[in-house]
């Protein structure tokens, strides 16, 4: 399945794009591209077509590569934020940590008994995306970038979920997709309010509540 492998490599490259870029719009573009690949993956991975697979592909493409990026772009436009990412660690260090994450993910996957019949890249790439999503969440101070990190995390989990598409019912997948959609939607609204109240999208300013 070379097509699936190629898509998975591109997914990892999109992760690195998020980690390496200094522009918010590039961040969002990367996550949209990743969504596009995630949408194509069920089709690339499957051996027998079904309505389930097509539905999953269409659903995730629409939500992950169109609706959510559009919504995030709108949020930063409406809030008229500065376009830099403002990381708490340098971009070079982020990239190095990212590659460490990929190495760990590949190493762990070699040791785990992987489910048979799927691309052997799928699980390592899924874990790597989860870890890099975490990295983005914890090292970026802007609320929008944290939402992007959350999306990456979810994308990684979605990738892992693709190992068992034939066992998990469609209804469940739609439920998961819907939940992610609503979560990002609510986060987007909060992001907008944060900007209005604090004149900044930085969650660093959120320090009033403490013991």
């Amino acid at each position: 399945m070379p097509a699936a492998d190629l898509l998975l490599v591109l997914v990892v490259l999109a992760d690195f794009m998020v980690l390496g870029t200094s522009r918010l719009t590039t961040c969002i573009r990367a996550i949209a591209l990743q969504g596009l690949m995630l949408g194509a993956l069920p089709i690339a991975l499957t051996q027998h077509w079904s309505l389930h697979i097509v539905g999953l592909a269409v659903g995730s493409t629409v939500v992950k590569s169109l609706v959510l990026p559009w919504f995030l772009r709108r949020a930063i436009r409406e809030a008229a934020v500065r376009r830099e990412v403002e990381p708490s660690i340098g971009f070079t260090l982020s990239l190095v940590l990212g590659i460490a994450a990929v190495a760990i993910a590949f190493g762990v996957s070699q040791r785990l008994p992987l489910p048979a019949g799927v691309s052997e890249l799928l699980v390592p790439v899924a874990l790597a995306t989860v870890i890099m999503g975490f990295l983005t969440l914890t090292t970026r101070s802007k609320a929008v970038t944290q939402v992007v990190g959350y999306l990456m995390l979810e994308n990684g989990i979605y990738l892992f979920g693709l190992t068992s598409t034939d066992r998990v019912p469609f209804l469940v997948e739609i439920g998961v997709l819907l939940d992610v959609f609503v979560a990002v939607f609510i986060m987007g609204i909060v992001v907008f309010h944060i900007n209005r109240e604090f004149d900044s999208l930085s969650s660093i300013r959120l320090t009033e509540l403490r013991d």
Partner: protein
Amino acid sequence: MIAWTAIPALLLVLVVAPLLPGIATKTKSWLTGRRGPPVLQLYFDLGKLWRKRSTYSRTTTWMFRLAPLALLVTSVGAACLLPLDGRSALLGFRGDFIAFASLLAVGRFALVLAGLDTGSSFEGMGASRDATFATFAEPALFLGFVTLFLISGNLSLTGMLGVGAGLLSAWIGGGGHAAPALALITISLFLVLLAETSRVPVDDPATHLELTMIHEVIVLDHSGPDLACILYSSAVKLAVLGALVVGVLVPRTALPAPLTGLVFTGGLVLVAVAIGIVESVMARLRLSRVPQFLVAAAVLSTLGALLVLVR
């Protein structure tokens, strides 16, 4: 191990090398709507410089005079180690990729010392930047070699790129995830090429401000045949690294011998055109972002290596 059959390809590279910067410049001019200098401009320049006399500042020492020669020797030496005809290198032994990288590094080192030797602050600054970026470019290059080693199981450049490397079957999807890995290191090596040959987005060969120069400012004091030597060596270095990229991208062991040279030259021209395209669509990076650019190249190489490791 010496393979005399590699001589024609080596001569071809040495002759064609000055053409490549010309093609890159021409592509850039053409894409930005200008006519630009003729493609053969570097040959003219070299001829003109060769007829002139070198001038030396009184502050400089023998290091300053040695550097151009050292650069020439190392660049040609690196060319000898690469299987340019797609089959075998003139000189090949186990671990010669380390010698390859070291030769390039020594040439750069000689030039950096020459820059420092002039005692000018501009040249010193250029030398420091050049050395810094070289340090960041090294991991990407080596990790690329590691990936090639993992694919071919061979520790010499001939084994990695030439006969017995199996790159062709790897590209077609023979073993594991070699194809995406090769694609990744091709890109990575191209980025290394841009950095090593002082091209946009790392350095701008067309800049006229000493403060922003990197490579150009180091050779500011060289003149006459010395400068010609440096310009020619740089062109050879570009051709050598280009040949490395082409070697990974287009395995030629299966082609008949006459066609190989043609495909190889075509590949080099394409690399030059690609450089021109990059120069016309990208701006130069801020100095502080250059290490990040090179780390990104290293990331691509590492990812390639990891992909090959997964079974």
